[in-house]
């Protein structure tokens, strides 16, 4: 994957396949701790211990269509090559938490990339899911949830016109977090 936001989309797609209804995405960038942390929490079907042990095995997949599952193994490789790692907590029936951390100043850390595009893709294809997004850059925080957006818009978010407005809105907000105007 070229950028981390694509990996995030991939993790969230996993959550959606696990029938998650509420998904929380948290991104923390902290220069003083030299840390970039991405956390995805969902309330899907979760995984039992045997599956959890095998989850980083590239030849392990729950899909019937194919024989390999490369999403998590690739992300793990990426994180570990940047002095970070991937940690997964899950219990059968209770959802899961995926934490990915990177050493922020490491030269091999991929760019976060187009986060608004990732979020809009999820809203567009799964308008029924509640997605909470929290982005912390040092001491600045931006939070938004699709529930809030839905209340504001009172109707389906899934119209191309509103989606593109939401995308511009997120782009502005994330730019502000990084100090740009």
């Amino acid at each position, binding site marked *: 994957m070229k950028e981390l936001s*694509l990996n995030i989309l991939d993790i969230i*797609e996993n959550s959606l396949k696990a029938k998650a209804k509420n998904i929380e995405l948290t991104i923390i960038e902290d220069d003083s701790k030299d840390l970039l942390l991405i956390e995805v929490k969902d309330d899907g079907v979760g995984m039992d211990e045997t599956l959890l042990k095998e989850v980083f095995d590239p030849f392990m997949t729950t*899909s019937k269509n*194919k024989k390999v599952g490369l999403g998590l193994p690739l992300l793990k490789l990426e994180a570990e090559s940047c002095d970070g790692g991937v940690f997964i907590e899950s219990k059968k029936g209770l959802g899961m938490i995926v934490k990915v951390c990177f050493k922020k100043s490491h030269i091999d850390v991929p760019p976060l990339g187009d986060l608004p595009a990732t979020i*809009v893709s999820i809203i567009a294809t799964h308008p029924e899911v509640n997605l909470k997004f929290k982005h912390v850059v040092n001491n600045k925080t931006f939070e938004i949830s699709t529930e809030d957006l839905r209340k*504001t*818009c009172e109707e389906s978010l899934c119209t191309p*016109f*509103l*989606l593109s407005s939401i995308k511009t809105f997120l782009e502005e907000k994330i730019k502000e977090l990084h100090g740009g105007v």
Partner: protein
Amino acid sequence: MDKIKSIEDLRKLREQAKAFLRTRQGEVKVKIYISMGTVGIAAGSRDVLLAILDELQKRNFTDVQIIERGSMGLDVEEPVVGVDRDGVVVYYGHVAPEMARQIVASHVINGQIISDWVIAKE
């Protein structure tokens, strides 16, 4: 478009959106399937999806439902886009954002299948 500063601005946009939308009646006419598994995402399906949304907005076409499908086992053809119109599902392979725009214009809206890019029908 004006820059949006707050959720309040979105509320205003909603009013605009209402005027903009044709009222959707009954079932949607067209379904667009997009495969967003690991392979699809790595091959660029997110950009394809955004191009489709953008083109739909430009052409003011809202009788459409976009459905995400996991990998269909056609990884070599990713990004794969399927269009379900008039009872036939047509799959296009190796779809680039620009191709996606053309698919929206000719197949989704006007019902003309672009046969050069078709990989499967069902």
